[in-house]
């Protein structure tokens, strides 16, 4: 992809891109929309960006970018037909922004073999860009979780409705458990027992915070390491499709409840409005942020991109 390579200064030292993963427990909460438009917002600020569609079962990132989805895809890389992942990058209508398509792939991300996942994870860091944004599929399969956990930042899209919130918490619980998958077997057994055992009222299972406090009591020598491991996750919530003013408070509230339940920090990045212009831009086959650059959602997305860039720069 010439635009990306030309944007690199000859004096610049090659370095690995920042990898952001956009995930969530539920389909239809705007993961592809957010991935595409965050990437375009970064591109508008001069960053070299590659968006990767890892929702292999139902890929539609290309649609949010106003593209057709034809051409080389991740399958070509995973089967060895293409050896350099950078050769999969398709141009978008914004300079410096490219996309790697998962469209038309028969592969389900959940069914990726271990070596395929390892190959992809390894090569994501060799993509020639400042930022790589992963658009993940819904669900909590190990493969999806691994891409999310291994990214430098995890962005979670949630909508202000109970089903989305319930799935978001389930997703987060799986993320945290997956993050601790390298813990000693005894610790993992204990974690599973605590997190699956119901409280005395028989309705709710115990929280991750309870597991950590049990670890504090039983194995105080290991507990700090577990906490450090969980704290290393950089997680950001985006509340999508808000309708009422009070919906905008959901992110603050979830930040607080996550802190309590998971004993971990989940940052509230911002919110996006329910806006019929989003549907309109999809029908026009035009990326939202370029079709409606003055809209309030475009402003919010650009602000989110700037906030995350600032965090990465420090």
């Amino acid at each position, binding site marked *: 992809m010439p635009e990306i390579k030309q944007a690199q200064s000859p004096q610049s030292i090659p370095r690995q891109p920042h990898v952001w993963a956009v995930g969530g427990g539920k389909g239809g909460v705007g993961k592809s929309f957010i991935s595409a438009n965050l990437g375009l917002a970064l591109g508008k600020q001069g960053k070299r960006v590659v968006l990767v569609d890892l929702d292999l079962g139902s890929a539609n990132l290309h649609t949010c970018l106003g593209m057709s989805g034809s051409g080389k895809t991740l399958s070509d890389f995973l089967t060895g037909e293409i050896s350099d992942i950078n050769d999969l990058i398709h141009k978008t209508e914004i300079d410096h922004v490219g996309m790697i398509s998962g469209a038309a792939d028969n592969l389900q991300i959940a069914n990726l073999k271990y070596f395929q996942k390892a190959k992809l994870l390894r090569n994501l860091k060799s993509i020639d860009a400042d930022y790589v944004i992963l658009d993940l599929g819904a669900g909590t399969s190990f493969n999806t979780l691994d891409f999310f956990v291994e990214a430098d930042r995890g962005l979670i899209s949630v909508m202000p409705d*109970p089903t989305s919130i319930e799935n978001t918490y389930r997703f987060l619980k799986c993320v945290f458990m997956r993050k601790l998958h390298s813990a000693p077997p005894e610790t993992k057994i204990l974690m599973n027992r605590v997190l699956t055992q119901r409280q005395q009222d028989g309705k709710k299972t115990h929280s991750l*915070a309870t597991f950590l406090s049990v670890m504090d009591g039983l194995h105080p020598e290991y507990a*700090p390491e577990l906490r450090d491991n969980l704290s290393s996750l950089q997680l950001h919530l985006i509340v999508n499709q808000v309708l009422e003013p009070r919906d905008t408070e959901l992110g603050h*509230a979830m930040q607080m409840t996550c*802190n309590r339940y998971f004993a971990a920090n989940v940052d509230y990045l911002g919110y996006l409005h329910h806006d019929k212009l989003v549907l309109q831009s999809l029908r026009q086959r035009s990326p939202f942020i370029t079709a409606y650059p003055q809209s309030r959602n475009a402003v919010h997305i650009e602000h989110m991109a700037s906030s995350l860039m600032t965090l990465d720069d420090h």
Partner: protein
Amino acid sequence: MNIKKDDSPPDYYTLFQIPPEASKIDIINAYRHAKLAYQQDSLAIYSLFSEQDLDQIHAQIEEAYSVLSDPIKRRDYDALHLQAGTNSTPFHEAGENVIPLHRQHADSPGNNESEVKSEEGDIYSGEALREIRETKKITLEYIAQRTKISKRYLQAIEDEESENFPETVYLRGYLRQYASQIGLDPDKLVRHYPPLSDQE
């Protein structure tokens, strides 16, 4: 496995997600956010907490606000909490109001090397714990009520009566909850509580 939940409240600043230097306005706003986050019809609590959890959290929010919104209570809380929980400075360096009485004597001229070596053990001895608790005007009955730990065990902790201790794994848990109630760092208390140190 019977899981004993840690019913001790998180520190007030963590509960409200504000820094210790938070202004009065920050505290008022954080209190409002916490009330909204945990109110019965809040979306954010959906599927996460039981009724019992929420009752406890509501009580903790009110308690935290009652302390942080009162300059005197907040100052006392900070004096103990900030020294005990958020940095490595031993709390006996915090100021006179939190120095256990017997430590003041130990710091007097004539303090020998063996006393210095046993400093941590002295700070977290049962006797010192009682002094701190009494300085804060917290009764054992209050701690028993808040933590659901039998007063008999709490008394044994302060008296260092090992024959009346529960099993070690429970003792560690009880010490943590006790420490939280009187504003000490739970990790440090478990690490330096003399009867446990003697076992190790």
